[in-house]
């Protein structure tokens, strides 16, 4: 699965006609059209049909499009998949994913739908949203439950509520959960996306959180407003020095033709696969930030 930058994932309610045509214009790497929490029960069918039509007719360019489908345990989840995948949806966030069985259930449904509509087997991908203590404890098994899983995201609101914890700006109460999610993603070789920051008036607090997300190893952040995108991208943009070093490493690795293991030397320093992977990530981020072609 080709790796691409997922620094920002902009939320947009799927039942909002304006957002369906404009969400991808704000420069976010990904857009998540929400059929779950942002849509009332009475509107679930309308949101689904509207998103289906949008997927059929709108060219979203390079922006990666996700839809947050309703859990398969609800009356809506299966219809979300059955209607949206044939309409062009290839990436979905599975809300309230707590066990690998949830992933397998969706995996099987996707295989069925792909077959029915002549879509390449495995074309549909899943991003698992971990929102409860159980989900976080199961993070590794969820992350490896299917080759369709391309990333896992952490949702703090439901998590803290279930924990009985208080959500604070410093986020100490989320530290362990966040780390576990990042670890699980690293083990599975996929991306981890951090939770949303809802206080649009506190830009400083937001910047602090994004910095700490990045330092922990998250690949990106879910955003609730276009104004957050630029801020996240700036923080996730490597500095020139880092970039130069990374480019050297990537070039050396390509020249040495390393694929599965081994060590090379760059500028007198030992460089192994994890370091190469990090360098590749930095180059990818730099490309997304427009620093290099």
């Amino acid at each position: 699965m080709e790796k691409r930058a997922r620094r920002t994932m902009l939320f947009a309610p799927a039942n909002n006609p304006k957002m369906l045509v404009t969400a991808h214009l704000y420069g976010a790497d990904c857009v998540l059209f929400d059929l779950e929490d942002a849509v009332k029960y009475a509107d679930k069918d309308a949101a689904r049909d509207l998103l289906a039509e949008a997927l059929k007719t709108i060219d979203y360019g390079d922006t990666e499009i996700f839809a947050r489908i309703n859990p398969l345990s609800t009356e809506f989840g299966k219809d979300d998949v059955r209607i949206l995948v044939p309409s062009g949806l290839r990436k979905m966030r599975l809300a309230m994913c707590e066990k690998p069985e949830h992933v397998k259930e969706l995996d099987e449904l996707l295989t069925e739908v792909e077959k029915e509509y002549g879509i390449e087997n495995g074309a549909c991908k899943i991003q698992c949203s971990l929102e409860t203590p159980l989900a976080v404890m199961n993070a590794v098994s969820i992350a490896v439950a299917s080759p369709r899983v391309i990333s896992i995201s952490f949702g703090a609101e439901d998590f803290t509520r279930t924990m009985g914890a208080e959500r604070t700006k410093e986020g100490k109460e989320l530290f362990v959960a966040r780390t576990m999610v990042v670890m699980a993603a690293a083990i599975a070789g996929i991306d981890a996306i951090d939770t949303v920051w809802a206080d649009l008036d506190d830009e400083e607090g937001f910047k602090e959180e994004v910095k700490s997300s990045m330092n922990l190893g998250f690949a990106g952040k879910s955003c609730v407003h276009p104004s957050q995108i630029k801020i996240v991208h700036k923080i996730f943009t490597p500095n020139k020095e880092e970039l130069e070093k990374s480019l050297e490493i990537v070039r050396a690795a390509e020249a040495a033709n390393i694929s599965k293991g081994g060590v090379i030397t760059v500028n007198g320093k030992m460089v192994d696969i994890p370091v190469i992977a990090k360098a590749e990530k930095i180059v990818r981020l730099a490309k997304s930030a427009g620093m290099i072609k």
Partner: protein
Amino acid sequence: MVGICGNEKDSDALVTVNLDNIGTEIIIESKIKDMFGKLMEKAVREVLDEMKVENAKVLVQDFGALDFVIKGRTRTAVRRALTGGMK
């Protein structure tokens, strides 16, 4: 049987589908009917054809919706009418 879907909001449309009809009848109410009325009607017709609905009276109250919105709302309105909508 009647199904309604949509909102009276900017860029949206409120579509009312009544399946107790003979043949198809499409009524468009819009401030920009002169400019886009024909395209709006075509959008509704395409959905009715896809869903194989031959008898329906469709009222589209448009508030600047693009075609995909009209289609989405029509589709849901038809579904709602079919699954025992309102009398």
